[in-house]
């Protein structure tokens, strides 16, 4: 082991040691918060292929940032060149010292400040490769740095409309980070200028700037500055957003080991702690948010998670959000912001007590078999057109049905869950379960995506559940409902609860494609905007909601459709009250495109009928 030392390495060494100490303490506290079931999971999965898969994922996501590439290639490249470039520098430094000393174990500062201790290295052709590799990695990081700098000055250059406004602490940490790599470049160049050696960048910069005898006095201060910025960054890391760098790796491991989130709002315990601190405030969620720049206070995921991390007041942030799920679906780290917000809401409204003991019994003792059990939900009752149309379509398809909540329906419970009062919807769930299970039906069809999501996820019904868009597409596929294509243009609005919430994008589109031309919309499928009235939002004022609706309508009506079509009564109602284009439910459109004249049956068909 080669032991070389200079006092300038101390800031780095102390900073690094402090960071390790703080990280260890914090991680131990968080890991102790894991439930006993989760600890068992870790023990049983530790020596399995899952750990290997996690390592691969760490390489793909924490270093190369592939998910960011998919959202925004420029941004992905920036993150990759910073993270992967730095990783290459660390690995390269290790290999370099190993190669030159013949000893694998060397002191850490020897590898980090290698060029100061060994300005000129020589050797076999491998020397050239090593020097080039290190310079290349440094160039990579510097490229990322230039892009990051450009992003600060003009975010649109990087294809971003909004970036996170960082808190002062994070700005300081960012400054230290930005200083590290240029200082490294100049320190190595100064050494190269004075002592020779260096690679394609440092040798040149060295001979331009640091060749003179006067420049000799620059060398040590530059190395000192490099070491100090490294040390300060490491000290700031566990207290700033850069904590995400190590935490995301642990989170990936924990997820691959099948850890399940602990119940309740505990941002300093268990999996939730790792999730909250894995958020890098990258700001990708901001552009995805339909409510960006709306309202008095920014409540987007990035700001909400930061508030949670910093233990500040996040009540308004948690209750204003629409819970449309855009941020969760686009988050490159996969932080489950939706759940975190719901947990926070449960925390806020923990004293709210609801009682639905007034609900009568709903057990049905006997009923004849029926094909379809129809549930239209609360919003459906305010939108009778959809219900009427869907019933007419069922008649057209010659299906028998029972409309279970025709007179006095009870809410499915999803709105209550969205307010964080999941446990208090039990009586409503019981009422609806008994009602539906007693119908002796074959399939439950609901015209409301909110009910659909809750029935599929939280209820344990004895029949399959379908959304009416899925059911109608099934009927069309089976030929029970036949339509010809017409000269109509549709823009389809994805309801949050059906699209991102339940992953149902295709069936309604398939139905519309049969009826006319389905226009493509700027933001659709998993990037669709919220109508502005998602039941997740509790405290967002009406005026702000209307602004969101207006934005969504602008996107939907951009290509001049004849109809804006949705398959959610809530979305339909919300969009309709502000839209200049007619807004209709999928079922209404399908009914209205019914041909007036019945086609003359073909000969073979008549013949068959006659023969029977």
């Amino acid at each position, binding site marked *: 082991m080669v032991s070389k030392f200079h006092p300038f390495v101390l800031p780095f060494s102390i900073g690094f040691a402090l960071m390790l100490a703080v990280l260890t303490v914090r991680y131990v506290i968080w890991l102790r918060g894991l439930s006993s079931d989760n600890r068992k999971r870790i023990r049983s999965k530790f020596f399995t292929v899952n750990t290997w898969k996690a390592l691969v994922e760490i390489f793909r996501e924490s270093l190369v940032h592939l998910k960011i590439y998919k959202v925004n290639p420029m941004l992905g490249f920036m993150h990759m060149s910073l993270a992967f470039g730095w990783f290459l520098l660390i690995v390269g430094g290790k290999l370099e010292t190993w190669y030159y000393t013949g000893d694998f174990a060397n002191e850490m500062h020897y590898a980090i400040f290698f060029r100061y201790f060994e300005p000129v290295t020589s050797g076999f052709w491998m020397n050239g490769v090593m020097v080039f590799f290190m310079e290349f990695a440094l160039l990579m990081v510097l490229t990322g740095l230039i892009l990051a700098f450009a992003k600060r000055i003009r975010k649109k250059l990087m294809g971003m409309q909004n970036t996170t406004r960082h808190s002062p602490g994070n700005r300081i940490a960012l400054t230290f980070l930005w200083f590290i790599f240029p200082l490294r470049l100049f320190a190595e160049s100064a050494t190269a200028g004075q002592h020779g050696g260096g690679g394609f960048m440092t040798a040149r910069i060295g001979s331009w700037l640091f060749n003179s005898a006067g420049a000799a006095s620059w060398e040590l201060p530059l190395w000192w500055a490099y070491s100090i910025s490294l040390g300060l960054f490491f000290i700031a890391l566990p207290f700033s957003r850069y904590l995400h760098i190590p935490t995301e790796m642990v989170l990936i491991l924990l997820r691959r080991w099948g850890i399940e989130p602990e119940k309740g709002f505990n941002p300093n315990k268990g999996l939730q702690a790792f999730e909250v601190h894995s958020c890098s405030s990258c700001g990708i969620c901001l552009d995805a948010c339909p409510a960006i720049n709306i309202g008095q206070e920014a409540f987007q995921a990035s700001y909400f998670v930061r508030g949670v991390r910093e233990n500040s007041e996040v009540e308004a942030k948690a209750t204003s959000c629409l819970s449309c799920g855009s941020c969760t679906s686009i988050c490159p780290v996969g932080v489950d912001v939706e759940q975190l917000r719901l947990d926070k809401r449960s925390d806020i409204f923990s004293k709210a007590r609801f009682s639905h003991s007034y609900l009568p019994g709903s057990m049905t003792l006997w009923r004849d078999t029926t094909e379809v059990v129809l549930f239209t939900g609360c919003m459906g009752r305010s939108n009778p057109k959809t219900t009427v149309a869907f019933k007419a379509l069922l008649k057209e398809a010659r299906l028998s049905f029972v409309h279970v909540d025709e007179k006095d329906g009870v*809410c499915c419970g999803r709105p209550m869950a969205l307010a964080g009062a999941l446990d208090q919807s039990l009586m409503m769930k019981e009422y609806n379960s008994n009602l539906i299970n007693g119908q002796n039906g074959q399939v439950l069809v609901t015209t409301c995506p909110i009910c659909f999501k809750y029935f599929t996820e939280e209820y344990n019904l004895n029949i399959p559940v379908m959304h009416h868009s899925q059911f109608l597409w099934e009927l069309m596929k089976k030929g029970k409902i036949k339509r010809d294509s017409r000269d109509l243009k549709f823009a389809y609005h994805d309801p949050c609860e059906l699209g991102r919430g339940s992953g149902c994008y295709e069936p309604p589109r398939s139905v519309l494609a049969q009826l006319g031309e389905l226009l493509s919309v700027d933001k659709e499928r998993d990037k669709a905007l919220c109508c502005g009235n998602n039941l997740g939002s509790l405290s967002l004022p009406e005026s702000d909601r209307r602004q969101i609706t207006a934005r969504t309508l602008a996107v939907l009506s951009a290509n001049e459709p004849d109809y804006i079509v949705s398959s959610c009564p809530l979305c339909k109602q919300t969009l309709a009250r502000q839209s200049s284009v007619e807004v209709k439910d999928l079922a209404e459109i399908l009914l209205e495109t019914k041909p007036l004249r019945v086609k003359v049956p073909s000969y073979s068909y008549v013949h068959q009928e006659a023969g029977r």
Partner: protein
Amino acid sequence: MTKQYFGFSVLEQRSVNLDSEMPAELESLYQKEPSLRACIACGNCAAVCSAGHFAEMQFYRLNVMARRGLLHEMVGKAAACMLCGRCQMSCPRGVNIRHAVLMMSQL
């Protein structure tokens, strides 16, 4: 005591007194959900209420109770809400009824 005016009677506890101060809880309720002030007790919310089919749940009445200081009664009645949001859709004044009910049931 009930005062008699031309055949109408107003219960003393329900008489309008603009000088009286709001209880502190109510003040915070109105602060957290300012849209409550916009309520004109038109009754749309009660007409569409899902819980109203089964129980005595009329949101505008909760608000009226709150204004009259009948907090205990209001909290009890608010417990019947299902938070389904139909009232909010039909409210002509844009009151965030779901949030308001959550707050009310917490008082």
